[in-house]
């Protein structure tokens, strides 16, 4: 949700989009694209994520009549994103992120390091990896993550701290002297 978008405004946008108002839906797209991108990136390869984001919203537009509670749109979009990323994983069976290093501009060593860190985040339990990607990759803060995914702030906070602790342990195990 863009700052200042109230629940009433959100409900209005969802209702309008459900009635076929494409402008309203595009507004929702701009509000939630980053959250959806983060959730997809927690599972799917980076090169496929942009396309999958679009697929999530196209599917959401078709299924919008099923959404009963406009306030639940964040969690609903997140669920569609998770389903699509799982489908994508089943289709492609891709596990490595090597191609992502080619896409990274500038320092190739940093790109390799970034891919390795992302792979470590993806190896974390589901609850932690999505929250960490939204925080560390998408740059959203805790309250924002809670607001957009529909999770409670308490859960997000716990997920962030436990996820970060696990990530540190795995980074140290990988290279005890290198740090991040």
């Amino acid at each position, binding site marked *: 949700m863009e700052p200042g978008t109230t629940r009433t405004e959100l409900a209005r946008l969802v209702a309008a989009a459900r009635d076929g108002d494409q402008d309203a839906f595009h507004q929702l797209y701009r509000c939630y694209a980053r959250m959806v991108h983060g959730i997809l990136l927690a599972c799917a390869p980076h090169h496929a994520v942009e396309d999958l*984001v679009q697929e999530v919203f*196209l599917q959401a537009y*078709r299924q919008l009549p099923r959404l009963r509670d406009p306030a639940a749109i964040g969690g609903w979009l997140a669920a569609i994103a998770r389903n699509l990323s799982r489908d994508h994983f089943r289709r492609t069976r891709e596990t490595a992120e090597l191609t992502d290093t080619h896409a990274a501009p500038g320092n190739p060593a940093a790109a390799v390091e970034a891919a390795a860190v*992302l792979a470590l985040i993806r190896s974390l339990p589901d609850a932690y990896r999505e929250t960490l990607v939204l925080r560390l990759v998408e740059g959203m803060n*805790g309250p924002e993550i809670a607001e957009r995914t529909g999770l409670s702030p308490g859960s997000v906070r716990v997920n962030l701290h436990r996820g970060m602790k696990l990530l540190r342990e795995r980074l140290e195990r990988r290279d005890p002297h290198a740090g991040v």
Partner: protein
Amino acid sequence: MPASEAHDYLWDAAGQPEAEIVRLEQLLAHYRQTAPPRPLPALERAPWWVVLYWSRACRVAAAVAAAAVLLLIAPWTIRRVAYPHGSCDALCLAGMPRINGRSISNSAEIATGGLVETDSSSQAEIRIGLVGRVTVLPNSRMRMVEMRPGRYRMALERGKISARTLAPPFTFVVDTPGPTAYDVGCAFTLETDERGSGLLRVTSGWVQLELDDRQILIPAGAVSPLRPGGNLGTPYFEDAPEAFRVALASLDFGPQDAAKRAAALADLLAAARSRDVFSFQEMLRTASGEERRRLVDRGTALLPPPPGVTRAGLLRGDEAMMDAWRSQLGLGEPKRWWLDWRDILP
């Protein structure tokens, strides 16, 4: 509290940044979504039937339709379950009761015309849908005469039954060699021998006994003796004083010698309580002359009638006045039989 301690950088990305997290943010930044996001291709709306299917109006319409179907089906189903037609279940409660001559140890179906017999050690229960249950006690013989919604008729040839019913008045009928008992929503026991001698005891609601042109409505707590040859005794409350009951039996079934009747009546009037005026009122249906005058005088002394009811009216048998006087007994209304549902619970 210092600003750095007030903030948790991992949580709110504010305050003193944590070097490790900042480094991770910078490292992973190139995976971040480009802003603004790529424009969406042309949006395709859901087909109209999907929109309709998921719409609130459609769900409400479906719920209304389901409710309507239920409303249509429910009375039929309830009637079918509650009011069996042509047959019902007979259960063995003790020993080996016989249904149509065959001993049963568990349960059996009994149809119209079927005969239930119990010996000295057996008992059976007839379950008539939700209308009622009849326990056929030892040494009894009862036939199912009619079974259809609105009328369940049995003939108790001898023995004793205990019945609990919840049905509109006159749905449940038991013939005996003497009178016929019509249930008015109640619980009762009825016993008779082959010659028609027995007793009706009402424990809840009302029962109407009919014989030829005589009808007696008996309330809970009262009994009505039956005598051979269609001789119906005056009903009385079971807790009536012994002297009252002896005198009443003498008047009903004793010698009809005038002096003895006068003495019995004097005993009866002396022993009666206000509640026993119920029996007086039944006696007044047939009493005449001096007996009638004495019953009215003692009865009105024990249970004063409401204003508007006169001695002369009671003596001449004015029905409206008799009804008004009966209402003073506070025995309730037979019409409100359905309020007695607790009494039929096992």
